[in-house]
């Protein structure tokens, strides 16, 4: 109970403190400490979940099982990472007087509120509650996307909020219809929209109704999760937001939205049979992978390129979740973690490139391996990881997805996916490889204040990806397996 309530409380308090304090350094440390506490609280709760206990609060409004615990730990861990990098990034912005102190405070307040909203998502058992929190994440992050108040950032934020609000409207409609489906079954009442009770009653739900609701959910949350063909806000928002925020958006926000889809998919799976869910999620997943691959090929702005790669990876996650089975869902969850490590790593790298060269255009930067060895090397690590190369984590999750697809006999899907992955690799190595290799231009790489913990974080992320490529620690393995059990997959 309390340990669960602690999780959202911490960032909320941090936000209020940031609002209060004048000194920018203090703000940073408040946020840092908050993130650290958040992580410890989450892991503590997750440890509980590992022992198979599920927590509830506010009469089942909040609820935590292995899956929520897993998502929360990813969120908390990435939050800490991002805070550490934010410190370096925002200091640089202050020093180069891109922003003033007010904006600095503004940033940290919103940052914490954003984290708060995201922690609510996995905790909410009531599906409408989940919707509210997801919508809340949109509203807060929109302000962060528009942080710079430049033309482009405002445009990006506008598109982001417009598209996501429209999308999420359908998600709410879907939720209503789900409510109706369960209400007609088990009468009115507060418990009607609770995931736990819905899952329990799923067999009896009217398939047609549930199908309609899931279609709406898929479009609604899919928009937010950046699944093609309703992904269009994503490249703009990711490229215009401050780099740490881009990392958060792509690393966990997308997954929060996808988390909503997961919860609904579980119910739909039981109510309408697996085929329907598998087909619709495969369509969205494969579509995202293919479209993203084509866009990656031609992209020269490294942040936009990474944004499209996020679309690709959400596609992979959806694809593998859709195929289901013992491997598919495991792969999907594992891929969420891998992506939450690889994408921030790459975003931070581009952040440092921006600090070094003042641009993120791949065509204008050369020879990073020479001028900034750490950035160059880790950049290559991130590149290989994101393109699903062994010995990095994503290869394992993608391989498990192949296994799932092979079990389902979906050779065509594998073939198409592999073709697309070749394009992705081509685009990545062509663009980023060009940045890292070659001779650095004269007088480039004027050093900027790097914050050593940030460097440590970069190394840690790279190391983590390598580790997950060769060995998945027992606890993690168990947590994921239990989450798979929660979704009812694996039988």
């Amino acid at each position, binding site marked *: 109970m309390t340990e669960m309530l602690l999780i959202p409380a911490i960032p909320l308090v941090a936000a209020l403190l940031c609002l209060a304090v004048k000194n920018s350094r203090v703000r940073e440390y408040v946020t840092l400490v908050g993130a650290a506490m958040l992580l410890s609280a989450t892991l503590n709760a997750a440890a509980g979940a590992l022992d198979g206990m599920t927590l509830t609060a506010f009469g089942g409004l909040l609820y935590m099982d292995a899956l929520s615990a897993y998502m929360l730990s990813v969120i908390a861990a990435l939050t800490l990472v991002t805070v550490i990098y934010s410190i370096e990034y925002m200091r640089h912005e202050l020093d180069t007087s891109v922003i003033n102190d007010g904006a600095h405070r503004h940033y940290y307040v919103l940052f914490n509120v954003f984290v708060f909203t995201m922690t609510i998502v996995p905790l909410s058992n009531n599906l409408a509650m989940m919707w509210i929190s997801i919508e809340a994440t949109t509203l807060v992050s929109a*302000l962060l996307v528009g942080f710079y108040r430049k033309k482009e950032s405002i445009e990006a934020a506008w598109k982001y909020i417009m598209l996501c609000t429209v999308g999420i409207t359908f998600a709410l409609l879907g939720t209503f219809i789900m409510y109706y489906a369960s209400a007609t079954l088990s009468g009115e009442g507060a418990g009607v929209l609770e995931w736990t009770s819905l899952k329990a009653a799923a067999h009896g739900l009217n398939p047609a109704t549930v199908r309609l609701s899931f279609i709406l959910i898929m479009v609604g949350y899919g928009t937010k999760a950046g699944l093609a063909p309703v992904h269009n806000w994503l490249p703009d928002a990711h490229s215009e937001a401050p780099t740490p925020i881009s990392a958060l958006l792509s690393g966990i926000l997308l997954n929060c939205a996808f988390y909503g889809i997961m919860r609904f998919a579980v119910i739909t799976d039981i109510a309408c049979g697996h085929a329907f869910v598998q087909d619709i999620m495969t369509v969205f997943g494969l579509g995202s992978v293919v479209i993203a691959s084509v866009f990656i090929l031609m992209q020269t702005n490294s942040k936009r390129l990474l944004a499209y790669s996020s679309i690709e990876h959400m596609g992979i996650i959806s694809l593998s979740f859709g195929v289901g089975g013992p491997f598919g869902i495991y792969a999907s969850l594992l891929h969420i973690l891998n992506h939450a490590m690889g994408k921030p790593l790459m975003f931070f790298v581009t952040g440092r490139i921006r600090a070094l060269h003042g641009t993120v255009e791949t065509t204008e930067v050369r020879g990073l391996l020479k001028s900034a060895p750490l950035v160059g090397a880790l950049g290559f690590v991130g590149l290989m990881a994101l393109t699903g190369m062994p010995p990095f984590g994503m290869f394992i999750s993608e391989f498990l997805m192949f296994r799932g697809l092979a079990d389902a006999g979906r050779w065509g899907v594998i073939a198409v996916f592999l073709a697309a992955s070749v394009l992705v690799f081509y685009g990545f190595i062509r663009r980023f490889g060009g940045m890292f290799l070659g001779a650095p231009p004269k007088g480039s790489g004027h050093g900027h204040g790097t914050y050593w913990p940030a460097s440590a974080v970069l190394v840690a992320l790279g190391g983590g990806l390598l580790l997950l490529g060769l060995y998945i620690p027992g606890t993690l393995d168990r947590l994921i397996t239990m989450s798979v059990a929660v979704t009812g997959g694996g039988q």
Partner: protein
Amino acid sequence: MIRQWIEIFSVIDAISIGMLLTTLAMNSVRRIETCLKAYTMNSLLLALLMGVCAIYMGIAHLYIAAAVTLISKGIVIPYLLRRVVRSLRLTRDAEPYIGTTMSLVISAVLVVIVYSSLSKGIVVEGVIENTLKISISIILIGLFIMITRKKAVTQVIGLLFMENGLFLAGFSLTYGMPTLIELGVLFDLLMGVIILGVFLSQIKKAFVSVDLDRLTTLKG
């Protein structure tokens, strides 16, 4: 005895159809003030419908819901929007991408699609049988309006229409959710509108106009 009256004259259907008509009207309206009026009308109808249902079923918290809707959608949001519009000195919307007749046709098609796909799929009975279909049609038409309109403000209005439709749907499907949830939803929407207002003025500042054709620098 009122219940019979309501049933005889099938008031609920009447009101919801009224909402549909106000939405369809958006296809032809050009002056932004008028758009706002149409929206206000639409919201008032929604509140009225809730009220009627409250009487019809005599569920206490439906009165609250109706009241909240009336205040937020019928009064607060239009007021906010009007202020924004005034501050931005907007009068007419630019010519939409699709002409009036054509867009009316498309809206009709959307309605047909909704009716067909719902009647073969989801089964709902009782007073709300039509309301649901109408509400989903309203949502789609609202989206369609957003697609055709060029000015940011009119897009926001389209979005608000969608939300009215959404509320109609939610209401007809759930007879008002647990109040807490409902308030949360409303709060979110309110925040959304406010933030949209903020961005509207920022757009005005940055781009000199709120003509959305200019918001196309990010592509590829």
